[in-house]
C-alpha cells in the first residue's frame, strides 16, 4: 500500500478571488454553472482584499462520518477521501451541522448533501487555478514550502550576522 496519497492544499494568500474553482466544480459535477452547487467556496473579505477558498479537508477522523446515523459516509483510503453514498443517505443534514469547515453542502433542489470528492483524483479546481491557490500534492510535500520559506529567513539572518562580524574586524 502507498504510504499517504495526495491531498488538496490551499494557500489563501495566492487566491485572486476569481471563483473559477466554484464554477468548474459545479459544471464538472452537475453540468451546470452554479456556485451554490460548488464543493469549494471562496470566502471573501472584500473591504480588505482577502479571499480564502474553503473545501473539504478529507479529515482522517471525520466528524461527518462519525455523526452519520445511517453510515452513509465512509473513507476511501485509495484516494484518501471521505465519500457519501447517496443511496443510503437520508438527507438529515447531521453532517452539515458538525463539519468544522462548513465543507458539507446541502442541495435544496435534490435534498441531498454534497461534498468534495477530489474529482476522482483530478480535482478540477486545481486544474483551472493558474495561481495555484488550490493545489493537489503528495501529503509529505505540504509543509515543505513553509519549511523552505522559514529556512530562507534563517539563512538570510545568518548571512547578515556573518557580514556584520566581518565588518567589525
Amino acid at each position: 500500500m502507498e504510504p499517504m496519497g495526495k491531498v488538496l492544499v490551499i494557500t489563501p494568500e495566492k487566491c485572486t478571488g476569481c471563483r473559477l474553482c466554484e464554477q468548474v466544480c459545479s459544471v464538472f459535477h452537475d453540468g451546470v454553472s452554479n456556485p451554490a452547487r460548488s464543493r469549494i467556496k471562496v470566502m471573501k473579505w472584500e473591504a480588505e482584499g482577502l479571499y480564502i477558498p474553503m473545501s473539504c479537508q478529507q479529515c482522517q477522523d471525520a466528524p461527518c462520518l462519525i455523526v452519520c446515523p445511517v453510515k452513509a459516509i465512509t473513507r476511501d483510503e485509495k484516494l484518501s477521501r471521505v465519500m457519501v453514498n447517496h443511496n443510503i443517505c437520508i438527507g438529515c443534514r447531521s453532517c452539515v451541522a458538525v463539519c468544522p469547515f462548513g465543507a458539507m453542502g446541502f442541495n435544496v433542489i435534490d435534498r441531498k448533501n454534497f461534498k468534495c470528492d477530489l474529482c476522482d483524483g483530478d480535482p478540477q479546481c486545481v486544474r483551472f487555478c493558474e495561481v495555484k491557490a488550490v493545489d493537489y500534492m503528495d501529503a509529505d510535500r505540504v509543509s515543505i514550502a513553509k519549511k523552505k520559506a522559514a529556512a530562507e529567513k534563517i539563512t538570510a539572518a545568518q548571512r547578515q550576522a556573518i557580514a556584520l562580524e566581518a565588518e567589525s574586524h
Partner: protein
Amino acid sequence: MALDRKIAYIDLSTREIKIRPIPLEVRRKFLGGRGLDAYLLYNHTKKGCDPLGPENTLMVSGGFLAATLASATARTHVMAKSPLGGMLGSANMGGFFAPELAWAGFHHLVIKGKAEKPVYLWIKNGKIEIRDAGHLWGHTTTETQWAIREELGDEDIKSLVIGPAGENLVRFANVMTGIKNSGGRTGMGAVMGSKNLKAIAARGTMDIKIAHPKEALEYNKRFIDQITSAKVNQTQGTLGTPFIWGATNSWGGVRCRNFQFNQELYCDEIEPEAIDEVCTETMGPYHMTGCFGCQVHCRAQYKIPTGPYAGVYDEGPEYTSQGAFCGEPDCRSIETLLTGNHLVDQYGMDNLETGSIISWAMELYELGILTDKETDGLDLRFGNDEALLEMVKRICFRKGWLGDTLAEGGIIASEKIGKNSFDYLIQVKGVSNLHSDERATPALALNVATASRGSDHLRSRPAIDLYHLPEPVLRKIYSTPVPYDGPLSSEHTEYIGKPWQVFWQENCYMAVDCLGICKYHTVFLGATLPNFEDWAKVIYYNTGLEFTPREIWDVAERCNMIERLFNLREGLQREDLKKGDILNHRYFDEPTRRGAPDVVGRVIDKEKFRKMIDEFYEYKGLDKNGVPKPETLKRLGLEKEPSHLL
C-alpha cells in the same frame, strides 16, 4: 441555460415590473449584452429625450455568455442616452455583478421612469422588488454595497451602485460594483441618480445549464492556456494596466497638460514598477486580484501609503488614473495618484473624465480664461496636487462656481465659461479622450474620432498596430471571418489600411461586448488571443446554439449599426465638433513636442484623415455623410427599426 435568462422591464414611476423571455430570434440577431442593449435603447427611447429626465431608459445587462464557461464572462454593461454628450451612453465593467444577475435569472433589465423617492432594486432568483433606499442616499459606493448586504443578510449579494456623484447628477458619474469595477464612461451614474435609483442588488442560485459540459470545460482550459501564455497578459497580471501607461509614455503616446505634451518626464514615482512596490509593501507579494473566472488578474490591491488617507485599502490604480491624476494635471506623486483613485472610486465618478476636465480647467487657468474669481481663489496651475484633489471633491459635491460648472461635463461647461474655452476641450461627442495622444498613430486617431460612445479606446482601437507586426501576421488576423485583400501596413504612423483595421476591431469588440467577455481575452493588446472562431465554439459548447464565425461578425456589424442609428437620430453629423466623427483641431494643428524620433513633430494630416473616414464609412456601408445606405440596412435586417421585438 443561458437561453432561458429573462428580460425585465421596470417602471420606477408606476412601480410596474414585467418579466419576459428573450426570443431566440432576438438572440440570433443581437446575441445579448451591449448589442441587445443598443437595440433596446433605440426602441425604448424617443429622439431628443432629456438624458436626465424620466423618459430616458437605462439598460443593465450581463453578456449572452455571462457565468458560463467562456473564460472571464464577468462584464456588466449599462446603456442609456448620455447626459455627457447627449449621444449614445454606454459603459462596461468587470467584477461579479453580471454572473450574479444571470444566476438570479436575468440577462437584461430595462429601467424606465423615475422613482418618487430613492429606491434600490432587489433581484433574487427570478423575483424583483423595489425597495426604499432613503437610508442609503449620500453613502459612498462601498458603504452602499456593504449596507445592502447587511440589510438583506447575505454577504454574497453583488450590487451595482452609484455614489454621491451620481446622486448629485455629475454628468460623468459612473456606476460601480465591488471596490473599483466601474462602468465609467458617459455618465451612466447620473442617469441612475436622475431616476432616484441608488443601487441594483442581485443574488442568485439558479442553475445555468451548460449544453456540453465536458467540451465546455476542455475548451475553457484551452482558452485559459492561450490567454495566460500571452506575454501581454502575464505582464498585466503582474503590473496591471499601469504597465501600458508606462510603456506608452516611454515613446511619447500619453496625454500631458491637457494635450500640450505627449510624454511625462521625471515621473519615476508613478512608473508601473514603483506602483507595484507600494502594492507589495502594503499588501504582500500576492496582491493581484481579478474579475469573475479570469486568470489574467490584472487588478492590483494597495493601501495608500501616506497622506490624509494613509492605510486606506483600494484597488487599481489603472492606466486612466495615472493619466487623470499624474500625466494630465502634471502631478507626479504616488500619494496623489492613489488618493485620487480612491476618491473617484468612493464618489463614483469617472476617473478619466474627471482628470481630463480638471486638466482642461488648469490649462484655461494658465491661459487666463479662468481666473481666481471662477476658482474661488484655488491656484489651479498644472502640477498643484492639492488643487487637483480639491477639485475632485468640488466637482462631486458641485461646490463653488467651477465645481458646479465642471460637473456639467466639458460641452456645457465650455458654454458657461465661454471665450475660446471649447477650443481646448479634447473631446469627441462630448466625451473626453483617453489620456493617450494619437497624433502619431492615425489608426488610433480614427478609432477615437468614430467610436460610438464618443472618444474612446475600447470601441475600435487597433492597439496591436503599435507592435509593428509583419504584414502576413496582420493579414491573418484581419482577413477572417470576412475576407480582406486591401493594403495593410505594419507602420503605426501610416494611414494606409488603417480604416479596415478599425472596422475589424469595432466588430471584434462589439462581439465580446455582446458575449460579456473581457477585451483582454481577445485581439486587443495581444495579437494571439481568441476571436470569432473561438467564440463560435464557446457559444455552441455553453448554450448549444450554432453560430458560424461569420454570423457572429454579422451580429456585431448589426449592433454597431444600431448604435450608429441612435447617434444619427440624436443629431450626429460627420464634422460637427460636438456631435460628429471629428477630432479637436489640435490634432491637426499642433505638432507633438516629445517622444521617439518617429513620434515627435507629428500631426494628423487632415486630408488623409478625411480619406480614412471615407474609407471607414464605406466598409460600414455608410454614405459620405455617415448615414447608412438603404441597402446596408437591408443587408443587416435593420430596415424596419424600431421594430419593437422586445
